[in-house]
Structures are given as C-alpha cells and as structure tokens.
C-alpha cells in the first residue's frame, strides 16, 4: 500500500510538472472555454434559448445548456469532451506508462525496491485517473462560473446532481482510454508503437464507427427503395446496436441523456417506441428515469475499463524482467 501511494504521488506530481501535462491541461481548458463562450456564438444561442418560451419543461435545465449548446462554427463542450478531450487526455497520460520506464532503464531499478510489482501499475493507473478527475473538475467549475457570471443563472439541485453524475461518468470514460493506452504500453516496447495503437483505435471509433455501423445495418437489415416503417426501424435498430460497440457512442448517449434530458437520442426514441408505441414522449426524463436509461452504458464502460486494466495487470505481473 505504501509502495503504491509513493508511486501514485510521484506520478501525479509528474503529470502536473511535466510539459506534457501542462500543455494537456491548457489545451483542455482553452478548448472547453472557447467552445462555451468563445467567438463561436454558443452564448448567444443559449441566450436565445432562454428567451424562447419553455417547451415541454426543457427550460428548467437552462444551466446545463452551457455544456451542450454549440455555436455557429464550433461544436459544443460536450462534443469536444466526448470525441476529443477525454480520449486524448487518457491516451496521452497512459501511452508510455510502462514501456517508458523500460526504455529509460528505470523499471528494473524500480522493481528492485521492496514494493510489490502491482504497486507500480496500480499507482500509475490511479494517478492517471486522479489527473483526469482534476482536469475535468477544473473545467466544469470554470464553465459553471462563466454561467453564473455571464448569464446570471444558477443551477438547480437537480442540475447539480446531473452535473455530478456527468462528472463521474466522464472520469470513468477517461479511465477507459487510460486503460487502453496502458495496455499497449505493457505490450509494446517502443513508445511510438503503443501511442499509434491507442490513437488508431480512438480514430476508428471517432471517425469511422458510424460508417461501419451504417454498413452493418444495411447488410443485416437492408432497406428497399421506399422503406416501410418496420424496415426503417429495424435498420436503425441494428445501426444503433452496432455503434454501441464504440465507447464513444456509449459515453455520448449517456452524457446527452444526463445533460440534455429534454432532448431525445435516436436510441431513446426507438426504445420508447418499442416500450409504449408512442412516437414522442413529451417532457424531459426525470433523474430516476435518466439513471435507468444510462445504467447499462455506465456498466459497459466500467466493465470495458476493468477488462483492459485486468489484461494489462496480468501481463505486467507475469512479465519476465530480461537482461536486455
């Protein structure tokens, strides 16, 4: 335990003292603030939304607009977090966790100290997760402060609860990417190889997954020239299932339901259609319903993270320290 905490504190200090960590932190902050109040016009859009009459009670989540509203030419904070910031932060923090130590010749010296071997990998993983948590906390707090100051709106208690849930979910999501990067850093010796491997997976899920899902759907549930409703539903259903293999999609759905309870994702609509036959269910989801909806998503991301970490852990523990 003491060994793990020593590794943890050292790694945490490294993340915040190294240029890599500092640049990463600045990037996350700048992009987030820009997406919210930059010249993109997100703030104007929020103001406009606030002034329109409340539809289906959606206006009661005005504070959350800060995180989900996009501007003219920049996507929303949530989009950046989902697609770019959290995956990149996780990958960058973990990409040389183990092979970096091997290459610099510090691993054998480290392992010759009286600590259990898993103290190294546990401490590093924990330090990465805490770094992600600190970055996300700072970012969310800064955006909230902007909300207080510029728009003069304060969050309701439910909004705070939703934000906290979103905060926890994004840390879990970050842990997934961190685990992925660490897995490759255990398996590959050159840092370039491990970095490209995790970036490749991120790029696939980020840019090509929707295309892959569409292709799968068209193959498994082909549509005629003028698709009937059942055909269309089946096709969309397959497409959604396929794209849920992507952690980006899972987190995207979960965070949208959390932060924009008045909106409906395609998946939700489909689910509601099957459940009640209704085409559209008016009114935002309550917190309880939200949790019910996103619970499978969270469990899947958590499970994937645990799986990745377990594989790295076992591999690292069984690895032989060779003379070269």
């Amino acid at each position, binding site marked *: 335990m003491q060994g793990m905490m020593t590794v943890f504190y*050292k790694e945490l200090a490294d993340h915040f*003292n190294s240029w890599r960590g500092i640049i990463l932190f600045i990037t996350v902050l700048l992009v987030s603030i820009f997406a919210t109040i930059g010249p993109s016009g997100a703030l104007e859009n929020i103001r406009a939304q606030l002034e329109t009459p409340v539809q289906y009670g959606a206006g009661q989540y005005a504070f959350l607009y800060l995180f989900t509203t996009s501007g003219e030419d920049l996507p929303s904070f949530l989009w950046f977090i989902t697609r770019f910031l959290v995956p990149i932060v996780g990958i960058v923090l973990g990409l040389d966790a183990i092979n970096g130590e091997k290459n*610099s010749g510090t691993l*054998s010296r480290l392992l010759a100290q*009286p600590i259990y071997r898993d103290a190294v990998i546990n401490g590093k993983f924990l330090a990465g997760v805490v770094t992600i948590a600190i970055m996300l906390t700072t970012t969310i707090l800064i955006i909230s402060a902007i909300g207080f100051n510029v728009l003069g709106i304060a969050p309701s208690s439910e909004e705070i609860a939703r934000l906290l849930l979103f905060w926890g979910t994004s840390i879990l999501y970050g842990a997934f990417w961190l685990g992925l990067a660490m897995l490759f850093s255990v398996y590959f010796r050159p840092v370039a190889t491990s970095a490209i491997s995790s970036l490749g997976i991120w790029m696939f899920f980020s840019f090509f997954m929707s295309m892959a899902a569409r292709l799968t759907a068209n193959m498994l549930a082909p549509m005629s020239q003028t698709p009937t409703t059942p055909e269309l539903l089946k096709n969309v259903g397959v497409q959604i299932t396929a794209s849920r293999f992507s952690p980006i999609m899972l987190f995207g759905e979960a965070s949208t339901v959390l932060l924009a309870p008045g909106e409906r994702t395609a998946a939700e609509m489909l689910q509601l259609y099957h459940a009640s036959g209704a085409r559209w269910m008016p009114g935002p989801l309550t917190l309880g319903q939200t949790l019910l909806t996103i619970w499978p998503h969270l469990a899947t991301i958590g499970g994937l993270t645990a799986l990745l970490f377990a594989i790295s852990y076992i591999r690292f523990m069984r690895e032989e320290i060779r*003379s070269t």
Partner: protein
Amino acid sequence: MAKQLVVQTVNLTKNYDKTTVVDRLNLRIEEGDIFGFLGPNGAGKTTTILMLLGLTEPTSGTAHIYGYNSTREPLKVKRITGYVPERVGFYDDLTASYNLAYTARLNGLPEELVIKRVGESLDIVGLSPVAEQRVGEFSRGMKQRLAIADILVKTPKVAILDEPTSGIDPEGIVQMLDMIAEIAKERNMTIIMCSHQLYQVQRICNRVGMLVNGKLVIEGLLDQLGREALGGGRVRIEIKLAKTTSKLVDCVKRIKGVVSVERSGDLLLITCQDDLRAKIAKAIVDANGLLIEMKIQKYALEDIYRKYFREA
C-alpha cells in the same frame, strides 16, 4: 568461526525457450566479500542476478540471500539488497535529489530521514553541487555515481552492481572502483560486481567467480585461483643473485617444500608448494650468497580468464 553466508544458490537453472542460460549454478558468497562476477557477454551473469533479486523466476533450483528465498520472499530480499542494473536509468526530468528521494520513499523511510539520507549519499559520491539539477543533464559517469548514491540511500547489506563502470573514462573508473571498495569496507557491505573487465575486478575484488555459458567454471579467492589454475597449485619464485654457484643452488634445493630449481645464468627459477620467500632469502644469506632481487610470480586474472575461456 565461519562467516555468515550472504548469497547461496543451489542448482540454480534458467532456461529461455530450451536454451539454458544458467546451468545448475552453485554460488556461495560470504559476508564482507567483494565478489567479482566474471564472464563474457551473454554468459548468464545478469540472468543470475535477476534471479537473486526475485525479478525472474528460476526454472529450477533455489537462490537465497541472507537465508531469504529470492523467489518466495522477494520483498525481504529487496529490502536488504541494493541493485544497480547495467545501463542504469533515472527519471531525466527530475532532479538528482528527487530521484534518490523516490528510492528512499519506496523503501519506506520516514520523511524526515529521506532528506538527510539523500544529502549524505550525494555527498559521498561527490554530487551535492548538482543535487538540484535535472538528471537529464548528467554525463554517463555522473549517472553511474548517482547509481551508487541510489544504493547508499537504501543502506543495504548486499549491493549488486552490474557493470558499474561501463561508459566511464579510465580515471573515472579508478575513482569509481576505489569508492565502491571504500564504501564496502566502511559499511561492511557485501558487494557483488559483475564485469567483463578483468583489471577492474582484480583491483578491488577478493573473490571471483567466472561464468561461461551459464556454468561456474571457477570460483575462489583471487590469489589461490591463480596458483591452482596455472601453477598446478604451486608458487614460482624468481631470484637474481650476484654470482650463482652450484652450492647455493643445492642449499635452496634442500629447503623443505621446494619442488624444483631451474638455473639460467644468474637467475634461479624456484617452484615450491608455498610462498617460501623468507626461507629462501635466509638460506642464501646464510650460505654467504648475494641476493639482488627476488620476485614472486603473480598470476594475472587475465591468464586465468584466457585459460578457462579457451577451455569453454
């Protein structure tokens, strides 16, 4: 009283994919020894060390340090053993003192002791002036000295140094070796030094073991080894006299323990079972001979090395 056994291996064996890297190694190292672990590259020295530290599991056999089983109780072994790997590395972005403090904390030293110990260790290896510099700016030799400091921070009972002098200039090597010998003496630390540089081993080690193709071909006290390996267990003494007479040769021959005497001009080459220099000198002086020079033939490690290397 027998000295305490620090390192003991019993039939220690390691195979990597059917190649035997270390083959039934039986090693015994006593307290206070400076043990030179010799052998050509790829002889299995590093693998043996990794097994001693419990970082690699032996295929068969056991390794013990101070009675602790390296495979089953690696933490206890690592608590009392310091290790400097070959091509030792540090965190380049961190300062020298931070690097050492990390080691100290990993060893569970209380925080007030960490700073003290780090300061002392840097002082001993002469790196205090650069304590707050990033290790990335250090030369190879400075890093090697930092590695010694890294061991001092831990104050182990045994230190295992894998090629501690690689990549340093000749003068640095001498300094480094003297430093190691001094530390070992002052702190009563047992040292195992891996090297393929014979001269270095000869300079500070009192015992050597030579590993060739995973087998320990020779092991023992340095001077004893030379006699056994080359002289058939005998000592050769060379003397120069002002004037050699057959009478003098005879009286040398009569000394108990002298095996043979060869004469070539004024030089006598005496083979005996022990170091009989004092007796020989006395015999010559008693017979009114004029002794100019007397040399005992030293066996250089290199001769031993070559002999076994060829045989292997």
